[in-house]
C-alpha cells in the first residue's frame, strides 16, 4: 500500500504542510491558554478542530501512530467541552498536549526526510487516557462506557471494504499473547484492533473495553487478547500482519465457520449499542454556548494564520522570478547605457528610458516584497522556549514582542530562527537572576525579555534585550586573557570590543556545563548564521540592569548599490553601504610606520591604507598616492582606506555568487555583470580589513 509513493507526492506535500501549520497553531493556542489559565469556547473548538483534522488526515495517509494520538487528545478535549469541567490541571493538560505536539512534529520531520514515521505513540496515548480518567474523577463524572469510539468511521485512503460485500468473507479467530513485562497490553491491543479495522468488515474482541479499563490488561495477560473477525483478505496476509506485532509471544489464528460462543454474546450487546450513536451525535452538533464555568471571557487567541486571501507558492518559482527580474535590471542597464548610443542626443529616447528605469525599479521592489515574510512566526516560536525554560530554571519570565509585523526576506527568517533561540536561552540562563536576587536588588520579581524588530533605512534591526544582571566586563576580560584571545590591556579595549569576545567560539564564563549552556558554542552559531546573511551583531550591557543584543541585517541580498572603481584594467565594485567617503589624497598625508604599513590622517584620526593593486596583484600604473583615489570604508568595528585608481560611477548591480569551483578569495564577496557584459568583482570589505 506504500508502493505508490510517487503518486502520493503532492498529497504528502500538502499533508506535511498542513500538519506543520496546524501544530504551530495548536502550540500557540496551548501556550496562550496555559498562561491565562482558562480555555475559552473558541479555543476548545479550535483545538478540537485541529486534532480532528490531524487525526483524519493522518489516518488517510496511513500514519496510524499519529492518528491514534490525535484521537486520544481529541477525546480529552471532547470531555472538557461536553462536561463543562471545572477542575482542570492546566499544567498537566498542556504538558501532555505539548508533548503530543512534539511527537507529531518529530514524526512529520521524519517523513519529510524520507524516513519511516515509526515512533510509538502508545506511551502518550496511555498518559492521555490516564489524564482523562483523572479529570473525570476530579469532576465527579460517572465513567461511561464510551463504546462508540470503536465504531467511528475512519476514512480510508483506499475505498472502504464495506462496499465489497459481494466478496467471499472468511471468519477468523485469533488469540494474541504478549510477552511478559511488556506493559500496556491494552494499548497494544487497541493498536492491533485499529490496524485490523482497515481490512476486516466486522470485528469483535475480548476484552471489549481496552482503552478505558485497566482490568483489561489483566485479562489480556491471563487469557490472551481474543479477536474474532471476518474478512476477504487471505489468511497468509492476516498472519503476516499479526506476526508483525511487537512483543508478540504467541499467536493463534484459526479460520472458523462461526465465532466461538463468547463472541456471540458480544455481538448481541454491540447491536444494541449501535442504536445509541445517533443520540451521541446530537450532542456533538449542539455548540454548548451555555458552558459557563472556566470559559468566561474568551481570551485573545492569536491566530498566526491570518485569514487574508493567501496563496501558497512553491519557493523555486519565486526564486526563478527573482532571478529573471535581476536579469531584466542588467539588460535594462545594457540597453540604456549602450556604447552605441555614446555621444548621441536622443531626447525622446532618454525620456522613454527614464520611464523604463522607473518601471523596472518598481517591478524589482514588488518582487522583493513577495519574498518578505513577517517575523511574527519566528518570534512566537520563542514563546514556547521561554515557557519551557522558565519552568525548568524556576524563574518567572515574561516575553514582550514589539514590531512583529516587520517583514524580512524568507531567506533571512530561516537564518535568524536559530540565533534568536540561542540568544533567548542565554538571556534566561545567564542574564536573568532568580526571584530572590531580583527582589533583593529591587527589581520586579518577574523577569522581562524583549524581542523587537524594526526597519531602519536599508536594514532590519532585531533586538533581544533583558533586564537581568548584565555582562560582567571584568570577568569576560579575565576569561579572554586566560584563553589567549586578547592581547591588549583591559584599559585599551572598549566595552563593545570586550563584549564581542563572547561571540568567539568556545568562549564561556561558565564554570560548568549545564543543560542549556556553558560550552561556548551558542554565540558562535549566532555569529556564523548572522554573518552568512551579511548581518552584524553588537552588544551593549549595563551591570545590574540588563543586556541588549542588536542584530543588523541588510534587507536586500541580491541587488545592491555599488560604487564602480577601476584598478588597472579590472573593475571592482564596492558596496555603497560600506563606504563612508572618498577623496583624493595629498602626497604628504600618507605616513608609513616602522613596519612599512601605510596610514593616513583624516580629521585627527589615523586610518590604515590598503592598496588594492597590491592585495590583488594587479598591474597598474597608478602607484603614487596622489594619482589615485582613497575610498574610506568601514565594517562593524573598524574603518580603513582603500586605494584605487579611479572612480567610475555609482551603479545598482545584481550580485551573483562566484562559482563554487573557485575557492573563495578573502576580500571578494561575489561578482556582477556590468552593462557592457564585463564582469566586476564585488569587494567584501570585512575580508579586506581583516587582512
Amino acid at each position, binding site marked *: 500500500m506504500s508502493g505508490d509513493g510517487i503518486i502520493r507526492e503532492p498529497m504528502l506535500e500538502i499533508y506535511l504542510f498542513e500538519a506543520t501549520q496546524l501544530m504551530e497553531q495548536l502550540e500557540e493556542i496551548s501556550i496562550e491558554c496555559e498562561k491565562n489559565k482558562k480555555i475559552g469556547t473558541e479555543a476548545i473548538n479550535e483545538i478540537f478542530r485541529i486534532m480532528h483534522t490531524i487525526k483524519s488526515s493522518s489516518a488517510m495517509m496511513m500514519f496510524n501512530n499519529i492518528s491514534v494520538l490525535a484521537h486520544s487528545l481529541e477525546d480529552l478535549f471532547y470531555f472538557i467541552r461536553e462536561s463543562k469541567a471545572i477542575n482542570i490541571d492546566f499544567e498537566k493538560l498542556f504538558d501532555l498536549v505539548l508533548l503530543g505536539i512534539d511527537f507529531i512534529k518529530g514524526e512529520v520531520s521524519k517523513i519529510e526526510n524520507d524516513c519511516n514515521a515509526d515512533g510509538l505513540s502508545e506511551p502518550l496515548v496511555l498518559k492521555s487516557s490516564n489524564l482523562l480518567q483523572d479529570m473525570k474523577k476530579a469532576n465527579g463524572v460517572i465513567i461511561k462506557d464510551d463504546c462508540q469510539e470503536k465504531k467511528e468511521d475512519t476514512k480510508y485512503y483506499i475505498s472502504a471494504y464495506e462496499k465489497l460485500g459481494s466478496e467471499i468473507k472468511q471468519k477468523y479467530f485469533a488469540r494474541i499473547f504478549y510477552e511478559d513485562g511488556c506493559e500496556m497490553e491494552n494499548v497494544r491491543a487497541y493498536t492491533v484492533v485499529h490496524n485490523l479495522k482497515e481490512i476486516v468488515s466486522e470485528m469483535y474482541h475480548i476484552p471489549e473495553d481496552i482503552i478505558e479499563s485497566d482490568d483489561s490488561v489483566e485479562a489480556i495477560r491471563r487469557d490472551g487478547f481474543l479477536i474474532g473477525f471476518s474478512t476477504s483478505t487471505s489468511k497468509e496476509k492476516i498472519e503476516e500482519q499479526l506476526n508483525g506485532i511487537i512483543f508478540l509471544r504467541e499467536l493463534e489464528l484459526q479460520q472458523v465457520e462461526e465465532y466461538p460462543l463468547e463472541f456471540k454474546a458480544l455481538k448481541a450487546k454491540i447491536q444494541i449499542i449501535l442504536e445509541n450513536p445517533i443520540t451521541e451525535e446530537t450532542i456533538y452538533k449542539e455548540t454548548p454556548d451555555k458552558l459557563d464555568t472556566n470559559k468566561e471571557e474568551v481570551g485573545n487567541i492569536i491566530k498566526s494564520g491570518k485569514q487574508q486571501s493567501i496563496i501558497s507558492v512553491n519557493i523555486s518559482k519565486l526564486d526563478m522570478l527573482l532571478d529573471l527580474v535581476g536579469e531584466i535590471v542588467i539588460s535594462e542597464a545594457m540597453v540604456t547605457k549602450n556604447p552605441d548610443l555614446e555621444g548621441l542626443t536622443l531626447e525622446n529616447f532618454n525620456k522613454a528610458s527614464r520611464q523604463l528605469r522607473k518601471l523596472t525599479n518598481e517591478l524589482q521592489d514588488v518582487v522583493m516584497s513577495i519574498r518578505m515574510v513577517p517575523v511574527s512566526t519566528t518570534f512566537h516560536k520563542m514563546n514556547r522556549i521561554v515557557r519551557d525554560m522558565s519552568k525548568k530554571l524556576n524563574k518567572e519570565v515574561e516575553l514582550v514582542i514589539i514590531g512583529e509585523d516587520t517583514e524580512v526576506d524568507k531567506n533571512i527568517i530561516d537564518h535568524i530562527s536559530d540565533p534568536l533561540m540561542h540568544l533567548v536561552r542565554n538571556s534566561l540562563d545567564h542574564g536573568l537572576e532568580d526571584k530572590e536576587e531580583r527582589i533583593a536588588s529591587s527589581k520586579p520579581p518577574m523577569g522581562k525579555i524583549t524581542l523587537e524588530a524594526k526597519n531602519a533605512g536599508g536594514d532590519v534591526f532585531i533586538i533581544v534585550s533583558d533586564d537581568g544582571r548584565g555582562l560582567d566586563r571584568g570577568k569576560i576580560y579575565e576569561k579572554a586573557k586566560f584563553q589567549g584571545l586578547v592581547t591588549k590591556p583591559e584599559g585599551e579595549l572598549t566595552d563593545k570590543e570586550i563584549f564581542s569576545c563572547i561571540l568567539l567560539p568556545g568562549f564561556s564564563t561558565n564554570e560548568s556545563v549545564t543543560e542549556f549552556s556553558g560550552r561556548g558554542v551558542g554565540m558562535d552559531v549566532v555569529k556564523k548564521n548572522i554573518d552568512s546573511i551579511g548581518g552584524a551583531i553588537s552588544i551593549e550591557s549595563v551591570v545590574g540592569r540588563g543586556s541588549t543584543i542588536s542584530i543588523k541585517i541588510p534587507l536586500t541580498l541580491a541587488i545592491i548599490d555599488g560604487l564602480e572603481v577601476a584598478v588597472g584594467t579590472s573593475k571592482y565594485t564596492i558596496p555603497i553601504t560600506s563606504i563612508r567617503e572618498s577623496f583624493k589624497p595629498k602626497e604628504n598625508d600618507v605616513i608609513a610606520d616602522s613596519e612599512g604599513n601605510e596610514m593616513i590622517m583624516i580629521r585627527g584620526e589615523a586610518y590604515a591604507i590598503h592598496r588594492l593593486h597590491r592585495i*590583488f596583484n594587479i598591474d597598474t600604473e597608478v602607484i603614487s598616492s596622489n594619482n589615485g583615489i582613497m575610498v574610506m570604508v568601514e565594517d562593524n568595528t573598524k574603518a580603513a582606506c582603500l586605494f584605487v585608481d579611479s572612480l567610475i560611477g555609482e551603479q545598482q548591480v545584481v550580485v551573483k555568487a562566484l562559482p563554487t*569551483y*573557485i*575557492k573563495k578569495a578573502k576580500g571578494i564577496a561575489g561578482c556582477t555583470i556590468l552593462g557592457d557584459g564585463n*564582469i*566586476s568583482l564585488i569587494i567584501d570589505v570585512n575580508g579586506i580589513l581583516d587582512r
Partner: protein
Amino acid sequence: MAEIIDETIETSEDTQKGKFLTFSVGKEAYGIEIKFVTEIIGIQEITEVPELPDYVKGIINLRGKIIPVIDVRLRFRKEPKQYNDRTCIVVINIKETTVGLIVDNVAEVINIDDSNIVPPPQIKAGFHNRYVRGIGKVGNEVKLLLDCDKLLNDDELDKIAEIV
C-alpha cells in the same frame, strides 16, 4: 519505478557512449567524452580573480552565467602560448560544476570503441598521466582520453605539492 528511469537513462547514454571530442594542446591530441561537453565557444575576455592557482585563468560571462576557466596548457605544465583566433573554450559540466577549458584548437567528434581503448602505461614520470584514463587508437593516431573528474578535483593535491 526507479529501475525504469535508470534504464531509460542508460539507453540514451548509449547513443552518446563511445563518442569523444578531440582537441589538441601543444603536440598532443586529447579526447573527452561528449556527455560532459556542453558547448564550445571562441576565446573571449577573461576577468581575473585574485588568489587562484595559475592555471585557473579567471571567470567569463557566458550569456549571464559566470563560469571559471582553466588553461589546459598550464594545467599540464606546458609552456603558455598566446591566445589566437583558433583558441577555443570547451565548456564542460561534471556533477553540477561547469568549467571552461582553454585549448589550442578543437578537432572533431569521433567514435572510439571500447575495444580500441587501452589503459595508460604506469609511468610515474609523466605528470599528467593521472588525468588520462585511457589511450584511444584512431587509425594511425593515438588520442589521450581525459578523466575530467581528476582534472577538476586534483587541485588539493596540487596545492599541497606546490607548497612542499
